[in-house]
């Protein structure tokens, strides 16, 4: 247990060190991409739990991210003034769950409070994950991959084809997300540093929850289901329910990430739901070592940052395609496997003894 939290502390230290480095280098604008990276990382560690620990692939997780982002964006921008007559709208207004907002042209809008929007978005993602996950997780191998891919494409097509969701343009002018103590999740440069810490704080919280889970009775059961499903059933583990719960949990992580990144960016577009995004998330989990939360997190930090800063240029998607192929061809257990680290240590110590001999 001590080891579990010492890694968390070390990672928190890294987060602080990166912020200090950008400050010293006089390049605080890097924090913007690093903050976005944090939200993608939240999705990725959740997906890592599903793929690496429960052994179920999902090629549709960008769909859950988009459900979170779109629902929250829609509710916090769609003007309800025309629907004031509806009992639900009146009820929400009475409960203080609606806000008056003025737009760029001075017009006034009546919109849903971000907190309620967030709750609705995550709730919807969780419900959809339950409904879809039940039958989907009965499938295996190719069928599971194809079904989750199909789910992702449906979400993408619906986002792209629905006028109410802005079609190809998506939804913009999404307000910031107010938090207690005067904090706000927003891409405004004046709150850049606080947003960087908020985002990574959320990732660290997510990591602690997942690390606890892995070390618990549930984590042991998941590992058993992944290792030998029939044997797990034979000692009383409800395998289908455990897979489903993990699927829903990872969908919840993805939707939370979608909600906050949308409020941070001030908008969301259909590309967030695209197949390439889903594949990219799987690629990062794979390169991190599948059943390795820390590996996935570090790879997510590096690759998302490089991608968002535009280092891969027009080859952005191609880079992730090549990574995926190379990893699966040469190191299907991932790059950051424990034993590779052990090999390096042995190599290092072996090198040291050679020097002593010399």
């Amino acid at each position: 247990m001590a080891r579990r939290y010492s890694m968390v502390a070390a990672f928190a230290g890294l987060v602080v060190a990166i912020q200090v480095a950008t400050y010293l280098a006089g390049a605080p604008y890097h924090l913007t991409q690093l903050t976005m990276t944090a939200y993608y990382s939240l999705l990725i560690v959740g997906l890592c739990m599903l793929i690496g620990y429960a052994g179920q692939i999902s090629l549709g997780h960008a769909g859950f991210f988009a459900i979170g982002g779109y629902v929250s964006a829609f509710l916090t921008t769609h003007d309800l003034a025309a629907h004031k007559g509806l009992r639900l709208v009146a009820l929400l207004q009475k409960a203080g769950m609606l806000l008056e907002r003025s737009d760029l042209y001075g017009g006034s809008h009546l919109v849903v409070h971000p907190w309620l929007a967030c709750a609705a978005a995550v709730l919807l993602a969780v419900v959809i994950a339950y409904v879809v996950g039940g039958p989907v997780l009965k499938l295996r191998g190719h069928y599971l991959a194809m079904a989750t891919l199909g789910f992702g494409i449906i979400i993408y097509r619906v986002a792209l084809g629905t006028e109410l969701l802005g079609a190809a343009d998506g939804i913009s002018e999404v307000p910031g997300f107010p938090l207690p103590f005067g904090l706000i999740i927003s891409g405004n440069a004046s709150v850049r540093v606080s947003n960087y810490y908020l985002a990574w704080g959320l990732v660290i919280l997510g990591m602690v929850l997942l690390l606890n889970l892995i070390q618990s009775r549930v984590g042991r059961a998941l590992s058993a289901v992944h290792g030998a499903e029939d044997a797990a059933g034979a000692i009383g583990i409800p395998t289908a329910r455990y897979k489903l719960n993990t699927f829903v949990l990872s969908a919840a992580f993805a939707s939370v990430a979608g909600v906050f990144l949308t409020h941070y960016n001030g908008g969301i577009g259909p590309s967030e739901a695209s197949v390439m995004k889903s594949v990219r998330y799987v690629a990062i989990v794979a390169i991190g070592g599948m059943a390795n939360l820390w590996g996935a997190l570090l790879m997510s930090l590096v690759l998302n940052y490089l991608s968002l800063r535009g280092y891969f240029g027009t080859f952005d998607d191609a880079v992730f395609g090549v990574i995926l192929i190379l990893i699966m061809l040469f190191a299907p257990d991932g790059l950051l496997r424990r034993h590779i680290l052990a090999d390096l240590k042995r190599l290092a110590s072996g090198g040291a003894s050679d020097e002593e001999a010399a």
Partner: protein
Amino acid sequence: MAGVTYGTIYAIVAIGFNIIYNATGIINFAQGEFVMLGGMTAVTLSRFVPLPVAILGAVVLTTIVGAVIEIVFIRWLHRPSVLRMVIITIGISILIREIALHVWGESVRSLPYFTGTSVTSIRLGGVYISPQVLWAVGVGAVAVALLSAFFNLTMLGRQMRACSANRDAARLCGINAGNMVTLSFMISAAIGAIGGCVVCPITYVHYDSGTPLAIKGFTVAILGGLGNSTAAVGAGMILGILESFSIWVLPAAYKEAISIAILLLILFVRPSGIFGSAEAARLKEF
């Protein structure tokens, strides 16, 4: 009649899935990319050479790509897991798509109609049909007939079937199983490219048109029962026509979402397909 054209291309993609699935047990997620590649190459070549030569060239080139993919990425893997193969072929499909994007850009392209123009129509039993639809259906039918003859009548075709039935036993009989797999990728790529060329004048081609085709082709392959190419033709028509009717009910933008929802329903309710037997499906490694 658009439904029939789309149905043909879905059936062709499904047959491509089946050929590789039968030879290797792998679902090649890059199957739709062969169609895109065939169409794109033919469009480019047709600017320099006559149409028939351009199509032939596109098919040959795509076939070579199929062979290269198998030799470089698949051949030397020893009993890879399903998950690994899924991810590798997805990676390959991304790679092909990105290369296409850099070569051809984002523009939508098309071949000229093989006979006549987009407004020509032939009267057939009371309905007017574009000749290109007849081309698509005709070529699709010929391809299925030829494949069926190949697998049932020729020595090579029988050897390929032997490999899919029992790889180790086939090897003991002196069949080079590795080459048979390469061959299956080549046939699969070739038939995809042919399909890409004949429907291109009607459906157009775009660097990103492979993935939706792959998914719908997979839907059709499942609908017909994985591995069963004759049934895939019927299933392709069903999906193509259902899809074209869905426009009457829902906005066209949701067309693709509908056909994928159909896929999900089939997977949930009857993964062995409409024509396949549930008993046989249970024996297959999903």
